[in-house]
């Protein structure tokens, strides 16, 4: 498959760039942060993004979506990464939509997808329980009751948990914990028994600790079959890993572009610092690493669109490499800006902070290097 985006995808990219430059520059994130915004994102902005169809790029037309394909969706994500937009895109669209779309029944799709497309509801995956990404190790339990199910457990690092309308929660069967199956429920965030403790992360976005204490659910809230949620979860996570990598690719390119511009403008010893060969070589090496990331990301986006059996490998290759390189680029960014790079006034630091959160989200470099090796049989 050709590794160049087509005209339609290019148009979407260009319009996303324009829109975000005007409507959601990094200055907007700074404002959200400094005003201690309780939501941590701008609902009006999200509404406008949904109106342009961005919340429905991966929703089938039958459910009010654009069904644009992930190569196209990736272009929007990349541009969002460039301006570090704080939005529910990752939690709601990459993860939420994917879970409903691949694991939900027709009723659930009809119920949730059109509302996601419109931008009127937000979803969030409540999956993590330990201090690092271990999605398949679940101890939150459900037990059967007379009129349905009851869920209890504690989830951490629930992205946008403080603003979500619904949680997709991963659970295991209390009566059969050793079976190791995962069961997915979708529950209203306002259900009795749910406590949400908002945490602000270093990227100024929110991730909550969500406690489920005998939360009621019915048969209709079950996504797929009992004990069989692993496949849906893994697929949604792989899609989210790739989508997030596209966002991270945008951030690394922007941080790199800003660093290169600075090298061409800052003067020391009577010359611009970009004339120093030690800095030129570091810049050239970063350029090379970014090229690899670009290729991995577009290949992976294509793998989603073609429903490739290689998806899990691709996701792990891409997420690990992109995480590694984003760390390099954001660190070099600060170093090459010198003292200015350490100030809160200069925006380069925002990239480093977002990077660290994105790196750990859905599995970091170590997690995915290990998973890639395991999937490859060594």
């Amino acid at each position, binding site marked *: 498959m*050709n590794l*160049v985006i087509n005209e339609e995808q290019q148009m979407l990219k260009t319009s996303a760039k324009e829109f975000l430059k005007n409507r959601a520059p990094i200055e907007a994130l700074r404002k959200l942060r400094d005003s201690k915004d309780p939501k941590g994102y701008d609902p009006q902005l999200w509404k406008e993004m949904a109106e342009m169809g961005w919340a429905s790029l991966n929703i089938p037309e039958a459910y009010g979506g654009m069904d644009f394909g992930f190569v196209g969706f990736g272009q929007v994500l990349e541009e969002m990464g460039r301006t570090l937009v704080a939005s529910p895109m990752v939690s709601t669209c990459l993860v939420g939509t994917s879970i409903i779309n691949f694991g939900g029944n027709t009723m659930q799709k009809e119920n949730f997808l059109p509302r996601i497309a419109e931008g009127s509801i937000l979803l969030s995956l409540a999956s993590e329980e330990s201090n690092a990404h271990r999605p398949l190790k679940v101890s939150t339990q459900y037990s059967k009751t007379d009129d349905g199910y009851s869920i209890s457990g504690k989830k951490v690092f629930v992205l946008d948990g403080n603003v979500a309308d619904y949680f997709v929660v991963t659970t295991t069967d209390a009566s059969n914990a050793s079976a190791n199956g995962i069961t997915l429920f979708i529950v209203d965030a306002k259900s009795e028994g749910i406590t949400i403790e908002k945490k602000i992360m270093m990227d100024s976005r929110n991730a909550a600790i969500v406690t489920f204490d005998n939360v009621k659910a019915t048969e209709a809230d079950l996504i797929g079959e009992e004990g069989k949620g692993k496949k849906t979860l893994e697929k949604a996570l792989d899609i989210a890993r790739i989508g997030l990598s596209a966002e991270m690719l945008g951030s690394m390119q922007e941080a790199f572009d800003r660093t*290169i511009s600075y090298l061409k403008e800052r003067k020391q010893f009577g010359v611009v610092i970009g004339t120093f060969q030690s800095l030129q070589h570091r810049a050239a090496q970063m350029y090379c690493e970014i*090229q690899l990331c670009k*290729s991995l990301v577009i290949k992976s986006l294509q793998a989603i669109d073609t429903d490739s059996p290689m998806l899990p490998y691709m996701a792990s290759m891409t997420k690990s490499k992109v995480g590694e390189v984003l760390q390099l680029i954001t660190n070099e960014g600060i170093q090459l800006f010198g003292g200015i790079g350490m100030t809160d006034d200069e925006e380069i630091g925002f990239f480093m902070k977002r990077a660290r959160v994105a790196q750990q989200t859905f599995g970091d470099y170590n997690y995915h290097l290990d998973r890639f090796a395991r999937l*490859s049989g060594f």
Partner: protein
Amino acid sequence: MDTTIQTDLEVFRMETKAWLEANCPESMRTPVKKFEDIYGGGSEATFDNEDQKIWFERMRDKGWTAPAWPTSYGGAGLNKAEHKVLKEEIKKLGCRSALWSFGLTMLGPALLEFGNEAQKLEHLTRISRGEVWWCQGYSEPGAGSDLADLQTRAVDNGDHFLVSGQKVWTSYADKADWCFCLVRTNPEVPKHHGISFVLINMRQPSVEVRPIKLISGSSPFCETFFDETVVPKVNLVGGLNNGWTIAKYLLTHERSMIGGISEAGQQKLLSQIAIEMVGLEDGKLADPVLRTEVAKWLINGAGIKWSMERMTDEAKAGAPIGAKSSFFKYYATELNKDKFELMLSMGGFEGLQWGEDYLDGKLARDMCRTKGNSIEGGTSEVQLNIIAKRILNLPTK
């Protein structure tokens, strides 16, 4: 199967496959053990065995030693799509390359671009027929990375030049019939503007070559001395003092080629080699640190391969590769060095053996040879300079 309409290309594929199956001897379908197993041609060349000879002659007569060159120059005139099919079928059957030489890979493309008709007719035909061995005379003792500073002089002497000077690192000059060479034709102008690209017949008494032994133990390189060597003016390519343009064109070509080598030679995945050499424990490579390194290498290997694909696609869409070949060259050669370091470490004590024969100690020798990957064709540092200046536009002063 219902075979109704077939495109011309499918027919070509079927014919190609049938021809290769009928004509490629069994032993020529086994992996080569060392580079020298591939026939290189030249006036002094001998065949290692009868199969190698048969395979070469059949491919030559078919025009498939230079499949994309016009038939008038001994090629087969294949278009891009056909050439791709041929390469794919050759790969599927595991056929060895029937002929490989600098003439085919380097001088050929330069002559096609810059040579005149007489030069193409004479030299391309002899290259595709494997009749001459060419070497590349660029580097000099005082002109390596700063190639344009070369001092070998070509003095105008009527209908010919007299060339004097010393070249070094001339790969396989001891076997060479001819040399494509950069010489200074005007010392008065800035260095890039006084260089010409000439073709020198090595079979004359005024040319002397001395082999240099490498850290791998083999001696494919030479020092080459010219002492008033006669070069008829018909052997000037692309016009007087225009040599730097050709040199740059060729270097770009060479870089993409060196960049592609690490992949072409790959028969087994690095993870497979690691499993065989180190073994698994509980389904994981027994050495956990090595496991991480191998995983990382494989991801980078896929990344560079897809980057070359992507940039080729982008070139078709109108964004020329240009200086990006420096990225391929830099990254792929550094990766290839890493790969051999990893393999040497997997190879353990046995991998360190160094016998008299190249094959007895192949891993250690091959590993030594890879160190040259980031030097030949322009060093890694030079590639990074090019990326910084020509792609990132970082200023010089």
